[in-house]
């Protein structure tokens, strides 16, 4: 039992890592423009298909990872420049509808270009082999996801809390006017937040195919929504909270499926959104009501 439990735990951390990667970017973007980026999930899809294309072309994995980061950054910056810039300062609802429209545009363009047919996608065999310690074993894919995510999040924290750009991002998120009065080029700072956040989402897409074996043009929708759930769990606008929320959501989901009888596993997403509604009601500002300092 405990072996099974640990195995589920690893599984949950791996899924949670993906959610955390998406949720952090979502939260960064929300923190700085105060609007939900509904198209954020679609960057995951873009990352997944870029990975597939590069794998098919025979590009080595480390280069693929770098490239996917870049693709995500470009996608995020394009979304910012095309849509967010023109509606900056608009109401939440206007922002929501506009980005929903972007999301639907991206999804349907992908459908047109790539067709709705799911594509098989597997990491190379060595990544799929399982390594074990004391009866608990995990696939190398899961371990790679967990470790790489931690490294990326560490790097992100360094950027946000230790660099001039990061300080400017946090300052802009808190008070746009004051940041401008300090001489911060706000457009560039906002663009940087979109670039970094979207790059992380694209990395989630990089892992997506390897973890689930299939990708399709609509795969970004549910992770996008779940990123929002994760942010709500951790407190919207907080990077640390989004990360925690992502891990909690991944673990909760896996444990829900793993510990309940088989016939309930189809209710996985139902469970997640019931959880969202419950949390929104009980702790609308997130489970970890932190100081504003976590905002960025």
């Amino acid at each position, binding site marked *: 039992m405990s072996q099974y439990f640990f195995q589920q735990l690893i599984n949950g951390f791996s899924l949670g890592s993906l959610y955390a990667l998406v949720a952090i970017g979502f939260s960064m973007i929300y923190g700085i423009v105060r609007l939900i980026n509904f198209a954020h999930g679609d960057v995951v899809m873009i990352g997944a298909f870029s990975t597939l294309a590069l794998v098919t072309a025979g590009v080595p994995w480390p280069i693929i990872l770098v490239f996917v980061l870049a693709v995500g950054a470009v996608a995020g910056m394009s979304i910012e420049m095309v849509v967010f810039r023109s509606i900056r300062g608009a109401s939440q609802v206007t922002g929501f509808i506009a980005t929903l429209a972007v999301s639907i545009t991206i999804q349907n363009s992908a459908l047109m270009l790539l067709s709705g047919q799911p594509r098989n996608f597997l990491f190379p065999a060595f990544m799929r082999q399982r390594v074990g310690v004391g009866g608990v074993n995990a696939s190398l894919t899961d371990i790679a996801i967990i470790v790489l995510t931690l490294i990326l999040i560490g790097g992100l924290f360094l950027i946000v809390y230790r660099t001039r750009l990061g300080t400017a991002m*946090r300052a802009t998120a808190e008070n746009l006017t*004051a940041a401008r*009065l300090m001489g911060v080029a706000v457009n560039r700072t906002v663009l940087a937040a979109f670039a970094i956040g979207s790059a992380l989402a694209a990395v989630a897409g990089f892992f997506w195919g390897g973890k689930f074996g299939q990708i399709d043009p609509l795969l970004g929708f549910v992770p996008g929504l779940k990123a929002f759930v994760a942010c709500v769990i951790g407190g919207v606008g907080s990077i640390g909270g989004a990360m925690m929320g992502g891990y909690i959501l991944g673990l909760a989901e896996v444990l829900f499926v793993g510990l309940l009888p088989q016939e309930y596993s189809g209710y996985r997403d139902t469970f997640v959104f019931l959880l969202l509604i419950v949390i929104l009601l009980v702790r609308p500002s997130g489970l970890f009501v932190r100081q504003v300092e976590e905002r960025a």
Partner: protein
Amino acid sequence: MLDVRDLNVFRGSTHVLKDVSFRVEEGELAALIGANGAGKSTTLLTLSGLLPPRSGTAVFTNDGEPLDLTRASSEKIVRAGLIQCPEGRQIFQSLSVSENLAMGAYTRRDRAGIKQSLEEVYELFPILAERANLHAGSLSGGEQMMLAIGRALLAQPRMLLLDEPSLGLAPLVVEKIFDVIARLKSTGVTIFLIEQNAAMALDIADVAYVMETGRIVLSGTGSELANNDRVRQSYLGVAA
């Protein structure tokens, strides 16, 4: 140093500034007084490039180099040395005190110079050095004001725009702040001060302007205005 002519600014469809003109010479301390909603803060936001004017000019000249404030980006204006310390302090509450000060020096790259400015600010406000690693949001109102001024100083202002530095502060703290303003002036920083506390502002101002519903209605030296009947009645609370 600053030459503003016939500035007209709209916020939405409201005509806020109407043909506003004034001048501030280098090394001078100029004050702009007026009631709530007269358009004082709008004037400053326009000067810092945050509000585009409908018409008129505003030229800031530093070291003989003119900069058209109605066209320049706020970033460029800060780089030119025209620094605003905004109304209500607007420090970054979630950042630490030292990070706030670092934001003040955002446009500067000279590490040694920044370090020196930082030391000067810490000398001016020792309390900020003590609290360097605390969140700015945990400071008292007076300390936050000091931080706001310190942050502006780190930008190495040639001219400082101060928006209501006395707002909501205890009288003792206000005195301290005005002391600092006078000291800054003596170091050669040009200052444009906006105040509702007209008495204190006129007391230290070389020249002053009175703004009413978006127009400059009076101007003169600080003491001239302090003795003007209209100013005395409306802003200094002296019965006619």
